[in-house]
């Protein structure tokens, strides 16, 4: 079985095949085989798999609690986003339910992680368009949210914080105060981001009308997350099928109709504002109480299966866990948003200009490690 990607050679004539990645400043651990004709891209073939580690197979060898740090690795910048659905699915199999306070803390962690991940994306998007200030600012502000998350979870990015039955530990007592201070600061920063980047005429010239995804294509190709919402579909798992206690908080789903790169950017910026809005409400709603339902002995569930989807930073994260009653899961199927968004890349790149490749590629918020698992 030979990978056909290896067989693509230069066809001569006016066309040139470029290997964008895996050794390329604009690719990540990932390769796109781009065929260019002049300045236009006539063919694009994504070639993921450079960081594939077989997380699904390895998960079959670990028990339910060991799997939490293991499955966190593919998406360390959105650690809660990737472990929360796993834990929810494991809870269904083990048949426990977290107390309310734990659910609220999970929501806070999930939203903090969404902001951390979006700021990381924004920084990289800035440098992809050649705007180095927009690389440094979000990366600096991201540290504030990492500090907040660290004060709850104990480490900077890989918290392994959510466990079946609840969360590992309670929040520090001064968290509310610190968080509100950070949110106030970041609200001001968002205005500055808009001034220097989002309302910058050169930035809008680079992204508006570029990489337009129609509503119909987005649905048909299985695009998910902010990319789907930028096409005018207000689908968000937090509202569609509320998990944790998302039905108790009131928030909006930012959408745009255009479906171009700029729409995808601005949707993510507004999502960060909504995340802060959710966290403020949750901090109000939270009441003291237990944070964990202690499970005695080795976790082992009834034979059966569970499907869970949640809204991670990049889109809908889906877990399918099959149990045969042993302490290890029989099969763990992870369907990550990045893997489903790859298909949009081929669709959008063909016909665009070579210079638009970074503007389109990273506007999809594709995270190679997540896609490869």
């Amino acid at each position, binding site marked *: 079985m030979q990978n056909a990607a290896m067989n693509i050679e230069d066809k001569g004539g006016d066309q040139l095949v470029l290997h964008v990645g895996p050794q390329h400043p604009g690719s990540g651990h990932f390769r796109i085989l781009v065929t260019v004709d002049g300045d236009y891209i006539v063919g694009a073939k994504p070639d993921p798999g450079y960081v594939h580690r077989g997380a699904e197979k390895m998960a079959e060898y670990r028990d339910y609690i060991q799997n939490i740090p293991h499955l966190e690795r593919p998406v360390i910048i959105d650690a809660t986003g990737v472990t929360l659905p796993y834990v929810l699915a494991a809870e269904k199999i083990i048949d426990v339910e977290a107390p309310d306070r734990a659910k609220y803390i999970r929501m806070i962690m999930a939203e903090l992680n969404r902001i951390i991940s979006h700021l990381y994306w924004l920084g990289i998007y800035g440098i992809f368009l050649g705007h180095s200030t927009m690389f440094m600012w979000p990366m600096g502000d991201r540290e504030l949210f990492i500090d907040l998350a660290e004060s709850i979870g104990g480490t900077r990015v890989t918290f392994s914080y959510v466990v079946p039955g609840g969360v590992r530990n309670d929040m520090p007592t001064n968290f509310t105060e610190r968080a509100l201070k950070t949110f106030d600061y970041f609200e001001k920063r968002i205005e500055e981001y808009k001034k220097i980047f989002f309302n910058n005429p050169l930035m809008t010239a680079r992204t508006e009308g570029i990489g337009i995804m129609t509503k119909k294509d987005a649905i048909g190709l299985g695009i998910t997350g902010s990319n789907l919402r930028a096409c005018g579909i207000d689908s968000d798992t937090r509202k569609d099928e509320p998990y944790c206690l998302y039905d108790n908080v009131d928030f909006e789903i930012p959408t745009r109709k255009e479906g171009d790169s700029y729409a995808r950017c601005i949707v993510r910026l507004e999502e960060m504002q909504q995340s802060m809005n959710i966290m403020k409400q949750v901090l109000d709603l939270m009441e003291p109480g237990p944070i964990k339902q202690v499970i005695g002995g080795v976790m082992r569930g009834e034979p059966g299966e569970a499907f869970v*989807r949640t809204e991670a930073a990049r889109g809908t994260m889906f877990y399918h866990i099959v149990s045969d009653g042993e302490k290890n899961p029989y099969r763990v199927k992870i369907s990550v948003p990045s893997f489903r968004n790859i298909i949009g890349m081929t669709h959008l790149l063909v016909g665009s200009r070579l210079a638009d490749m970074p503007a389109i590629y990273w506007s999809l918020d594709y995270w190679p490690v997540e896609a490869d698992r």
Partner: protein
Amino acid sequence: MPSNLDTENQLVKSLTDKFKTKIKTEYVKHNRIKISTSQDNLKSLASSVKELGFEQVISQGGTDYPDNNVFRIEYHIICVSKKKLRSIMFSIMTEISKDNPEIETLIDIFPSAEFHEQETYENFGITFIGHPRMERLLLPEDWDDIPPLRKDYVLPGRG
């Protein structure tokens, strides 16, 4: 958890009316429907599910059951555009023999299944007939062992 299953039952009923005994309802739970069928009817079932309004394949995966000598292939389908159906996840399932792991592709009905089917192909060795790019996606090019997600592949050092 509210346990009003009206919508779910309605959906299942419309399918059972159409397919009669060709399909089997595994379970209908809150927001979750699972229907199994034979290998031959999978395609027509999929197009009927699409007609009901479920338009995106959120996940497609296989599971190896060496005791029964079968692969179980599942498509998890969701709807993103219609508010009423958004909370429901629809699973259609079929079992194919391990001796002849071939099945017809569903990407002409669900284009979103393309990469998922490719992944199932390399991880289980199941060939999807009609898929335009039945080739390696995530596995290394020099992988010459049996497909890794089969149960008879044992992780090195974990036997």
